[in-house]
């Protein structure tokens, strides 16, 4: 019961934080996604024609939503947890009888909340440009939940190791963005030469984007079961790493 209240408190604190700065957290993704739709969908997309049996705009919508979810889940936890370290208000939790798993779950839950809320905003914006079909709503819900949890965990681990604000922008810039752009958001990996198709198989975002696209359009470049196994593997691994780091007090306790 106490742990449930503590978890709810961390979640509340995290949600209050990103809602308090909504101009920085909720508005930019809506603007960015509108620009993507205008440029890649309307202007360039109309010349590309069909992809995977769907017009280009419909094809990229799930990928763009997933890209936004990934970015926001990651950056929410990375910046919030690092700020808590930097301002030392993480000590509020460390001195309290809050189990480590509750701290991890609370921050990850906060990252998921922002990722999913921004995903909903972006989905709403996309309705202005394209009709969205839903093939399997459960696949959509499962994929978006697990993917946001995976990247929220990634953001948490990044923040645990970070010593400066620069350190929480390096991974998103040099790892996350390239992986996302090369993760099949804008194209079907079946269009790539065999070698690059093979390389794409080691990019976890390919599985997430394709599982999500399957939920909307019913098409995927990868097997859906494999996609969920890959996501499950990453979530388990990252959760274990985050728990070990928090338990040892890495970057938190001297």
């Amino acid at each position, binding site marked *: 019961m106490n742990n449930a209240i503590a978890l709810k408190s*961390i979640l509340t604190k995290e949600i209050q934080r990103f809602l308090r700065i909504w101009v920085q957290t909720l508005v930019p993704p809506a603007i960015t996604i509108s620009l993507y739709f205008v440029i890649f969908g309307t202007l360039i997309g109309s010349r590309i024609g069909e992809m995977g049996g769907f017009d280009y705009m419909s094809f990229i919508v799930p990928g763009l939503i997933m890209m936004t979810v990934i970015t926001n889940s990651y950056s929410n936890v990375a910046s919030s947890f690092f700020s808590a370290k930097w301002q030392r208000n993480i000590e509020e939790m460390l001195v309290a009888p809050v189990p480590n798993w509750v701290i991890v779950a609370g921050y990850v839950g906060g990252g998921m909340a922002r990722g999913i809320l921004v995903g909903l905003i972006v989905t709403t914006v996309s309705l202005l440009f394209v009709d969205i079909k839903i093939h399997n709503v459960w696949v959509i819900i499962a994929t978006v939940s697990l993917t946001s949890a995976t990247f929220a965990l990634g953001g948490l681990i990044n923040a645990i190791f970070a010593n400066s604000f620069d350190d929480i922008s390096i991974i998103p810039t040099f790892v996350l963005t390239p992986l996302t752009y090369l993760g099949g958001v804008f194209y079907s990996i079946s269009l790539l030469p065999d070698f690059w198709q093979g390389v794409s198989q080691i990019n976890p975002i390919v599985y997430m984007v394709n599982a999500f696209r399957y939920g909307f359009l019913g098409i995927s470049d990868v097997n859906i079961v494999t996609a969920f196994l890959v996501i499950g593997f990453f979530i388990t691994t990252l959760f274990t790493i985050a728990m070990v780091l928090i338990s040892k007090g890495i970057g938190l306790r001297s």
Partner: protein
Amino acid sequence: MSHALEINSLKKTYKGGFQALKGIDLTVEKGDFFALLGPNGAGKSTTIGVITSLVNKSQGQVKVFGYDIDSDLEKAKSFIGLVPQEFNFNQFEPLMHILVNQAGYYGVERKVAIERAEKYLKKLELWDKRNDAARMLSGGMKRRLMIARALMHEPQILILDEPTAGVDIEVRRAMWDFLRELNRQGITIILTTHYLEEAEMLCRNIAIINDGEIVENTSMKALLAQLDGETFVLDLSPHDKEVTLKDINYRVNDDHTLEVDLNKNQNLNPIFQQLTEQNINVLSMRNKSNRLEALFVNLVSKKEPKTTSNKQAS
């Protein structure tokens, strides 16, 4: 019967080799108002850090109300309220959010937490600021906010690390009254401070830590009894004749100020008697220096801290 706090052979060596604590033993009884004093870098904050689990100890045992922090950390933590030296709340968060969320970390229901937040914000004169971001508060208000936050789960032991640093005298005195009230309600209070007057006025027992070791651990009364003597400054009424005092070591500073040195076997009565015989009235009287300060300087200077190139904050 368990103590409020029991520390045995506590050692802490930081990465880089600096030994902040060299095996300290300390016991604080339930309901005590306890002062932990020491110069900068002596190990006070490290000790508090270990008790509150913000610092990993290297060796030794810490028990809070009988619960060992190695085996019952969460239970031990639930007894403690911490007011740290540095402001460590989210500067952008409103006061109410800070307090209610903090209570939640201890499992306090939201409804109860809101009632307690109102109680402590009103008590500490912060109620009008409840919806303001913490960064908008003055230094004194921020200190009071940290005290309110530490009380949200109604702890049995309150640890205050320099709670009145940088606070004006009026606010400081109000905080003293509040801390006395909490202690009367049964809360054990451990205080570190640089204001020795504060420790002398508030605390019943005292430990002095220097260079990672406890150099004194006794009652305030017993410690003050160690004083060999005291110097008093007397303000005198206007008089024509020169002041003379028999069997008293004294100095005439000016026409109306007298300094007298008393050893611990002497009392003030002969001085008043002799001045009265000379038709001189004592208008006011004060200690020349803080009594505890003299002892403190003496105790910590007996053993000079070793100098080290990578010394970390205590």
